[in-house]
């Protein structure tokens, strides 16, 4: 067990980092803040498949606003019901960040192919969209069993790092993720897997058949930080402190406001806690 700061130090500049979609309390907000504090640069974010919930979108947006990000591969970034992600939209329209637009099932398929170490996945759909026209890592091929039947081959994705927040770790370092199996797909595909956890229990999940079904085994996990509240402003019951996200959204509407917010909520908050 370690701290978010130590996890952040394990993510080099330029790394590709896959992030969960944040429908449940899996967005690693505290770790993102530690990355900002350590001054990470040129990250290539991959959202699995989108960060378009208020908290996951805010996490991506603050990383972009802090200048940590060179590229985002995504099916969608927004603050969900609270509207657009201000720094993301600014950075994309200015060209400061390159966006590689995807569609959800293509990201899932490419990450699942990565987890299987197959060179590519195939997918129906997509053909005739501008998404397909813009990418050279998606190509249309023939179904070898039915010539003339077109299918899209998607190059596999193997991120350098998967990072997320999980509800529990046990004494052996297994993570309980429940129905949140996107975390498992991200972990299977990634070279390094870093997790913050809400709780650490002194048992072994495999001793309980019900818990065992929702486990990501320890041998996939590179390092764990026990960091309660690391997905805030999303709470562990999946409710969100929307006022905190609204405060971020308001501040982030201007570049100056965003920098103030980072100084206050990321840099000063940490100093105060120390």
């Amino acid at each position, binding site marked *: 067990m370690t701290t978010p700061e130590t996890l952040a130090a394990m993510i080099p500049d330029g790394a590709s980092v896959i992030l969960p979609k944040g429908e449940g309390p899996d967005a690693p907000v505290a770790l993102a803040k530690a990355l900002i504090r350590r001054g990470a640069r040129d990250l290539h974010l991959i959202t699995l498949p989108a960060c378009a919930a208020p908290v996951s979108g805010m996490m991506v947006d603050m990383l972009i606003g802090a200048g940590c990000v060179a590229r985002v591969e995504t099916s969608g970034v927004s603050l969900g019901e609270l509207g657009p992600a201000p720094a993301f939209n600014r950075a994309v329209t200015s060209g400061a960040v390159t966006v590689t637009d*995807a569609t959800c*099932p293509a990201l899932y398929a490419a990450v699942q192919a990565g987890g299987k170490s197959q060179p590519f996945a195939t997918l129906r759909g*997509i053909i005739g969209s501008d*998404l397909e026209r813009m990418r050279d890592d998606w190509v249309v091929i023939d179904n070898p069993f039915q010539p003339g039947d*077109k299918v899209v081959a998607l190059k596999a994705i193997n991120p350098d790092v998967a990072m997320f927040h999980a509800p529990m770790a046990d004494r052996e370092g297994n993570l309980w993720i429940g129905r949140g199996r996107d975390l498992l797909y991200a972990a299977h595909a990634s070279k390094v897997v870093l997790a913050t956890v809400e709780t650490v229990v002194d048992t072994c999940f495999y001793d309980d058949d019900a818990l065992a079904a929702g486990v990501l085994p320890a041998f996939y996990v590179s390092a764990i930080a026990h960091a309660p509240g690391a997905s805030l402003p999303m709470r562990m019951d*999946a409710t969100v402190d929307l006022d905190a996200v609204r405060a971020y959204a308001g501040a982030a509407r201007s570049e100056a406001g965003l920098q103030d917010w980072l100084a206050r909520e990321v840099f000063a908050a940490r100093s105060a806690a120390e």
Partner: protein
Amino acid sequence: MTEIRDEEVLATAIADLLDGARHIAVGMASPLPATGALLARERSGGAMQVSILGNAKASRWTNGGPELFDLAGRGGIDGFFLSGGQIDGRGNINLVGVGDYPQSTVRWSGSFGSAYLYFVVPRVILFRWEHSRRTLVEAVDFVSAPGTSEPGVHRTGGPIALITNLCLFAFDRDRARFRLQSVHPGHTLDEVRDNTAFDFDLPETVPQTPLPDAETLRAIRGPVAERVATIYPVFARQVFGAAIPAA
């Protein structure tokens, strides 16, 4: 009976379009489509499955995010809703941005699952509240997902209708064109014409979008409103008001 609200008319139109479906999925932050889908479910006596994405309590997935797409690919999702920052007359939708990609002048959030679900869900309902020449354009700036496909491209799904705050269009897949089906109460054909930048077909006479009958209204304001309130409490209080107990 109190005054019938626009949302109730639209939810009824949506439920009509979903009649007989087995499984409907509704995207995140889509309270009005969800209301329509839950009304259709109520009418099915609960036989219809409605999966609200982004809400663990209102969905049954146990294989992660891919499961919706896998099931849809197999024909297991009968209905879905899509929207667009721009929608054009050929049913193409744009969820990415305005201007010259990738450096759009206006950027939206992204294409989400549209580039797949539009191909494989038989009844996709396009839902765009704001009916204007800015949203209903002649040709989208970026095709997140095309309305129709060339022969040889696997396509078992696509748009069946477009619902706005003014009217309901039906989509003709063979001709890749919309046809005005009805205008909502309180609005006119001229309004629709003035605010639509694409060309569409017209019936000889344009009917009004039907009002929900008494039984439908009871369902909407009763069990449907109650269910909607557990998922979209703010929306539910806005639309159904005092009928909904505070959370």
